[in-house]
């Protein structure tokens, strides 16, 4: 059974109705975030979602995590429907969100992880060991007892990854996980992600970073303007340059970007 299946999924965000838009400055109508996206992610694989800002990567992850509900279509996580069987899906999915603001600022890293672990039904007697292990694996063991309001962006990001992994989920969703990490920390993180399929975990990772896609991915899905433009299996011989060319050919973005780049170079 595939780990995650999206069947003709569409997502619209409706803006404030014109009736309530008294000053006429807000956007009205609706934004099409995803349109008719169908995708299958086999178990034990790392799927990389590539796409520019606003292409629907985060929306896809939020839909899989049950944070959002689809307007059309169905999403299944190991057979469980995210709309009708959300509780089962939540037990199976861990989500490292892109935003830093998702922790209790006056609790330490350890206390935050303990809190979320309890809500994820991790028994008290094994929590401390799991937390220590994850703090070590994400390089936060020295800051375990620091209040997270004193954390840097990169530390928040690593703590978010630790939180996503604490319940040992079958599916891990990572939204731009190395955006704020220095190169060394990013390389350590990529090692961590590469090891997850061996533990039976399926990973879906959203990024703009071609290096990251090649470093960790088995499969790439390119989203562009809310549609699935292409899928590609990443072989060991495929390099960053080849992936970049494939991406720009698929999205046609280069035609828009090149004139700006050449103007900048003059």
């Amino acid at each position, binding site marked *: 059974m595939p780990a995650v299946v999206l069947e003709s999924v569409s997502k619209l965000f409706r803006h404030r109705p014109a009736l309530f838009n008294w000053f006429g400055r807000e956007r009205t109508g609706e934004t099409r975030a995803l349109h008719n996206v169908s995708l299958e992610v086999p178990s034990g694989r790392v799927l990389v979602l590539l796409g520019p800002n606003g292409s629907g990567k985060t929306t896809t992850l939020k839909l899989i995590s049950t944070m959002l509900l689809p307007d059309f279509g169905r999403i299944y996580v190991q057979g469980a429907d995210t709309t009708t069987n959300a509780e089962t899906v939540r037990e199976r999915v861990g989500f490292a969100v892109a935003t830093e603001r998702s*922790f209790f600022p006056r609790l330490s890293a350890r206390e935050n992880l303990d809190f979320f672990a309890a809500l994820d039904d991790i028994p008290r007697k094994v929590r401390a060991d799991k937390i220590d292990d994850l703090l070590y694996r994400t390089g936060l063991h020295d800051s375990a007892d620091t209040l997270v309001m004193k954390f840097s962006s990169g530390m928040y990001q690593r703590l978010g990854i630790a939180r996503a992994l604490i319940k040992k989920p079958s599916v891990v969703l990572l939204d731009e996980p190395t955006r704020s990490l220095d190169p060394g920390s990013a390389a350590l993180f990529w090692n961590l992600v590469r090891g997850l399929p061996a533990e039976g975990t399926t990973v879906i990772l959203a990024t703009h970073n071609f290096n990251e896609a090649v470093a960790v991915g088995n499969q790439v899905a390119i989203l562009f303007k809310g549609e699935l433009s292409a899928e590609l299996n990443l072989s060991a011989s495929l390099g960053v340059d080849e992936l970049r060319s494939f991406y720009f050919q698929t999205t046609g973005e280069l035609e828009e970007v090149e004139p700006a780049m050449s103007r900048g170079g003059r």
Partner: protein
Amino acid sequence: MKISSLLDKTAVIMRRDLLTAMRYRTGFLLGGAGAITELAAFYYLSRAVGPGFRPEGIEYFSFLLIGTGFYTFLLMGVHAFLQTVQEAQQTGTLEVLMTTSTSPPVLVFLSTLSAFTANTVTLAFYLIAGLAFGAPMRPNVTSSLAVFGLSVVVAAAIGLLAAALQLAVQKGSAVVWVLGSVWFLTGTLFPVGTLPKPLRHMADLIPITHSLEGMRLALLQEASLAGVGHELLILALFALVLVPCSLLVFSWTLHRARLGGTLSFY
């Protein structure tokens, strides 16, 4: 859900709230000092009014003590629900909390249980300080607990409606504002009987009026269960209507927020 898991979750939520409160040391101390100052003001007000003024046959300082103490307790209880959702939106934790294995209604309920516990401690401190100022009490424990319990259930239902409004339009504070602005109808500082007839009818429609009346009878006049029967019946009717309504409205607004992608809006 297993009882042990529920207790574990309750414990971590209470620990989170306690640690956060203790780490805001100044606010913690100012809260205690504020309560003492308020009681001192009421004590001298009742002395200025003189011993001849005995609303409903009760010594005026005791009347004020129960009125203001319980009114604040119930209002803070309602506010606790709103605060739970509002803080989670502002700290960015709401979306993440909604992806844990704990269902949203359980999560809100446990967070509020923690807030109610903290409010109960504050109330006990307020009443003990009132005793130190010389307020005579003749409590009937059974009646007091019955009125207290039903009042908490009704306040929780109103609080859940405020939380739902916060999710729907980010203005749950409107509920607290409405309750806060009708304080003069509830018999907090003076008896409802002194109001004109139309206002007395309005006062009857506010559950807090009946809570204060019941608590005064039970705590100050040793009223038996039969003695507070009228107040218990009205509070039970409020609970019967408000509890299912608030659960339905909260579930519906949560569903709408997940559909509209507005969970983290504030």
